[in-house]
């Protein structure tokens, strides 16, 4: 590994600092556990620095960073180290270990706040209820705004598989939110 120059170190910090919060947030969504999300975020930040010399300037740094996040998360799961918390978050659990829903902004209309809060809870529950493969695909594409190709690279799967998993994930979320299955024709 080459020694990064001082300029490259500064460039790396400039790129990664504004992404640290979304990174941590994505880690929370994936793991649903604060302690694991902290470790996952820290590991991702460290690995990103180790591999920064491999990052091609001019390409999407955010997507590159989230690819490292996804790989690290999958490695943790593959090695049997951890499993994401997939029960709904109002189930009993050890205080402080599960991730509580962040509060929306204070100056939002109360009625809207209530509606949004309720919907967000239901969305989170619907996400949590997805099979792991679909959940990850929906998180990366719909919540982290990665393209299908970037998500495919992050997950190490063909783009067609990403397409399929996103589609099925959304369909299941739709059913969970509306309570009604896909309409059946006569």
């Amino acid at each position: 590994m080459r020694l990064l120059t001082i300029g490259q170190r500064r460039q790396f910090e400039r790129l990664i600092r504004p992404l640290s919060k979304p990174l941590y947030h994505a880690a929370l969504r994936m793991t649903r556990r604060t302690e694991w999300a902290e470790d996952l975020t820290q590991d991702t930040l460290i690995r990103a620095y180790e591999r920064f010399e491999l990052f091609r300037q001019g390409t999407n740094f955010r997507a590159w960073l989230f690819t490292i996040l996804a790989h690290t998360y999958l490695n943790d799961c593959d090695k049997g180290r951890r499993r994401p918390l997939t029960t709904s978050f109002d189930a009993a659990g050890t205080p402080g270990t599960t991730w509580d829903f962040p509060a929306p902004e204070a100056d939002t209309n109360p009625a809207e706040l209530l509606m949004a809060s309720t919907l967000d809870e239901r969305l989170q529950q619907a996400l949590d209820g997805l099979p792991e493969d679909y959940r990850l695909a929906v998180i990366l594409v719909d919540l982290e705004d990665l393209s299908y190709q970037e998500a495919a690279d992050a997950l190490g799967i063909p783009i067609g598989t990403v397409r399929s998993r996103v589609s099925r994930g959304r369909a299941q979320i739709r059913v969970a939110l509306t309570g009604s299955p896909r309409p059946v024709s006569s």
Partner: protein
Amino acid sequence: MRRACEDFEELLSANLDGQLDAEEQSRLKEHLQSCYFCRDEAKAIASTRRQLHNFRSREKGTPVPGPVWQNAVRAWDAQDARKLRRFEWRALAVAAMLLLAFLGVVWARLQQPLEFPVQAALADYAQIRKRPPRPQLATQDPDAANHWLEGRVGANLPPMDLRLSRNELIGASVISTHDGPLTRLLFNSRDGLIALYEASGRTQYGDLSPVQVGGEEFRRNATRAGETLYGWSKNGVGYAVVTHQTARQVKNTLLDAERNSDQPSR
């Protein structure tokens, strides 16, 4: 559920993300024109997608816990320190290797035998023939001449006494050449002047032709003016006799000189 609509479920979702090729778009468009259920499903999936995107934008972000960022920065610093140490060691190793290689080249050059200044000797002798110089040390005593020469050039030179071959020593001189000092003993013979040159460490004679004289091998270089140089080397010293006489005439002188150079140094 209609089987045909199941085939379009994935297309409905991917279409929202612009992931369909032209053929798939055309197929979907055609299907939606005739399928109410899929048109409804398309709206529902689009709504779900919008809700997910809004969900993302409503989340203002949970701050990264302080220790997470601090630990990461410490890890980066530690990586830099490790890489710098490895870099420094590698730089030192490369510098040491370069120095050794340089010293090796210098040593090899020092060990390599150097060329005898053949042209300088011939030019000097040509000059002597035009105008015989006064030697720096005028003496007929070979030992005195040898002692004087050793003091001048700092080299261990055997005394060259050619009186046996009926040559009379005139004197000794040290000539400066661009290859270093060249000692000269000038002798008078029956047939003219003979010069004997010695150069310590210069024992190569390049492409001079080998020639046998009285059973001994010499290297010979002849000029148009009729001067001939006969060279040989012994014990790290290069020698040359330069004369305008024939090989037959100088045979005894050459053999005498060659035998003298066998003598061990004092």
